[in-house]
């Protein structure tokens, strides 16, 4: 119980650092100096101390959403912590459903202010997430088919999950966190009406969600039976993912929205491949 509590606090504390690391690496690869890795923390502090503007069209859904989103991500953090762990398929699946709860409210809040941007973001977010869900399900399926061991199957699952993570954390090539260009933004379009502490809470939730997804991939790649090195192994894999995400963001351009189906279709095929590998016991 105490360990789980410590883990949750640790997750919240580290989560913004990963985003900072990703942008630092991106900048360094582009031969720029870039902001400090602690920039996300400064941003959060700034947002939490600022006045908030709320649209006069918004209802209580808009006001409660940041808290619901944060609560759902927090519940997910506890779910994957030592307290409950991911050792059963049921918990893994529950993770998908808990993320869906946060997303449901986020997309409703985006529609709530009556801005076209919100509707656009909400529609696209639901579109992408509904295509992500079968891939997530299939990777979890393959992984549990195979048991908790490092194998060909689990590596392919992890790759499929990595592609899904790019989509879920609104990274290039699916979305771009750095832009506010009206025709391309997805996640940012939903947040457009948020400011001050609400925006801070949502950003913190996004960092935390990213951390959880990275951790899940690490958890699939580093099998449970290496328990003594478990912690170090997980950290190594998470750092590797951070570098991979940064490189992907630098190397690729954002896709057209309707090309995302191809991207996620590829992830789905990888998922199928890992199921086949799991079937063959490879």
């Amino acid at each position, binding site marked *: 119980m105490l360990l789980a509590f410590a883990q949750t606090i640790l997750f919240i504390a580290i989560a913004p650092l990963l985003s900072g690391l990703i942008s630092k690496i991106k900048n360094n690869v582009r031969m720029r100096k870039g902001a400090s890795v602690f920039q996300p923390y400064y941003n959060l502090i700034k947002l939490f*101390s600022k006045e908030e503007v709320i649209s*006069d069209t918004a209802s209580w859904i808009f006001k409660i959403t940041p808290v619901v989103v944060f609560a759902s991500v927090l519940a997910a953090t506890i779910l994957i912590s030592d307290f409950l762990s991911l050792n059963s398929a049921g*918990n893994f699946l529950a993770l998908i*459903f808990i993320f869906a709860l946060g997303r449901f409210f986020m997309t409703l809040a985006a529609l709530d202010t009556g801005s076209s941007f*919100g509707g656009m973001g909400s529609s696209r977010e*639901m579109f992408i997430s509904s295509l992500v*869900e*079968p891939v997530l399900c*299939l990777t979890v399926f393959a992984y549990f088919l195979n048991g908790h061991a490092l194998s060909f199957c689990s590596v392919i699952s992890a790759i499929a999950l990595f592609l899904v993570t790019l989509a879920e954390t609104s990274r290039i090539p699916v979305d771009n966190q750095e832009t506010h260009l009206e025709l391309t933004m997805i996640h940012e379009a939903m947040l457009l009406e948020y400011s*001050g502490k609400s925006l801070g809470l949502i950003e913190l939730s996004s960092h935390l969600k990213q951390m959880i997804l990275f951790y899940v991939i690490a958890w699939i790649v580093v099998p449970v039976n290496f328990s003594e090195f478990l912690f170090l192994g997980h950290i190594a894999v998470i750092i590797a993912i951070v570098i991979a995400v940064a490189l992907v963001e630098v190397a690729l351009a954002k896709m057209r929205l309707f090309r995302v189906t191809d991207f996620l279709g590829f992830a789905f095929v990888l998922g199928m491949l890992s199921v086949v590998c799991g079937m063959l016991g490879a």
Partner: protein
Amino acid sequence: MFDLLSLFFLFVIFIVSLPALIYSFSYLKGEYSAKQIFLAQVLLCVFILSMALVVTVTNLIAFLVSWEIMSLVSYLLVVSDGRNEKSVKAGMIYIVMTHIGTAFIIAAFLIMYKYANSFDFIVIKSISSTIPANTKNIIFLLLFFGFATKAGVVPMHIWLPYAHPQAPSHVSSIMSGVMIKTAIYGMIRFIMAILGVTSPSWGILIMIFAVISCLTGVIYALMVKDIKQVLAYSSIENIGIILLGLGLSMVFISFKFYYLAVFSLIASFYHLLNHAIFKGLLFLCAGGVYKATETRNIEKMGGLIKKMPQTALFCLIGAMAISALPPLNGFVSEWMTLQAFFLGAFNASGTMKLFLGICASMLALTGGLAAACFVRLFGITFLAKPRSNHANNAKEVSFSMRFAMFFLACLTIVFGIFAAKITGIISKIAAETAGVDATSMKFPFDSLSLTRGAGIWQISVPLLAFMLAVFTIAGFVIYRMFGAGQRIYKTWDCGYYKLGQRNEYTATAFSKPFRIAFNFFLLPYRRMNKIRESFYHVKTFAYETHTVPVFKRYIYSPFVIWVFKSAKFMRRIQPGSIHLYLGYIFVTLLALIIFVHKI
């Protein structure tokens, strides 16, 4: 054979019918004259009782009679609402499709009677092992297609999206929540309990149809703009989820994995019960919205959360439950169904694993699309600014209507949080139905999660609910106390200064990405018409987009045309001459005499 299965379905029928009955009094008030209302209420009671009869009788003939009463009374209820062509047409499609289904069922019953020489369920069950395998397959197919027509399984679903929206809302709520479930009862009773599952191919066939229903239902639900039609299509999807559990259970029975069979049957039963509750709730909410705005087109709504705060809250709960969000009841049953797939794949072998994996991922896709569908439904209907005067003048509905919604919304929450208790009870029903002795089986219902290894803490729904509630409330309190102030201001409008309802995202726009992604199936087309004053200035702009109703255009319309053509051809033997008719009677008599003599 009045057993736990009948009792379970009786429970489902009454738990939705009672709030619908309470709701109906104020819903009908002001729409019709007192005499019409009285007649409608009598019909409604007959309808509820006929459904109760369907699930309790123990005799094929009695079953058919009550089935027919149910169909006819529901037809009358469907046509009762509209004083327009639409209702009559919807009722026509409904009654024709229902009777095609009934014809299949009667054929299956006749074959069963031939072997048993009795109409009694118990007698048929006792001789069912003597029926040869091929005949059993035929009976299965007849029963499945017969009941699937009533359940609205794709491609026999054609009547459902017409009939359910046209009925008065409380009737839709009963039809969608309960009546289509009587068809599931028929499948469980006759295929599983009486005939006995012999071949895994039965379950696989059901699962294939179920997956098609799930996806087709939810994709169409994302496209349509009529609030009740969205719910009707979503019923097709949910019937698919229920049948997935049922089919899976049949596969496991034929493989003799009794533990898994009972587990997936529990998931199926629980989803059936949950769907009855939240779909009943959502139809009542839709009826409230219709009553308040006098339109069913969600593009004309918006901003209703401020005009009808309570209806909005109940509708939000229903939408969350149907999108399978924790900790509500829809989450629990979908979660269990997915776990049944996972667990089945551990135990099955070969390509069965792959099949189960694909089914599970399609179920996940359905869940994602359903969430999108209900974000659209709730967001466009209740949020942002009113899109028309209909919505602007809306007022909260009467107390008795809100009470009915409140009751079902509470059940949605209770059935989610106390799922462990309820699935414990359902496990007995499922075990009895599957013909399995479940006393030795241990279901970890405190956790509702299955695992291969023991000794691992599992997540439980009450714990999850508790966590979510505490975090939300605590978070909200801290959030309010802490930080700088708030300011109310206009939505950012890019300096346009005229942001109004015309700038809001519409339901059609919301579903555009889905329309493009599934264009191979939806075959969308659009028509644009620009009228220009000059080259630079477009005076008016007309835009029209539609999808092609694939099933209607490529299956049903050609069939109907063929039927009329052949009827025209057959009319040649009916020229209206009495002499010829007497000749026909004479020839028939002769033929009969020869036939009887031979036997």
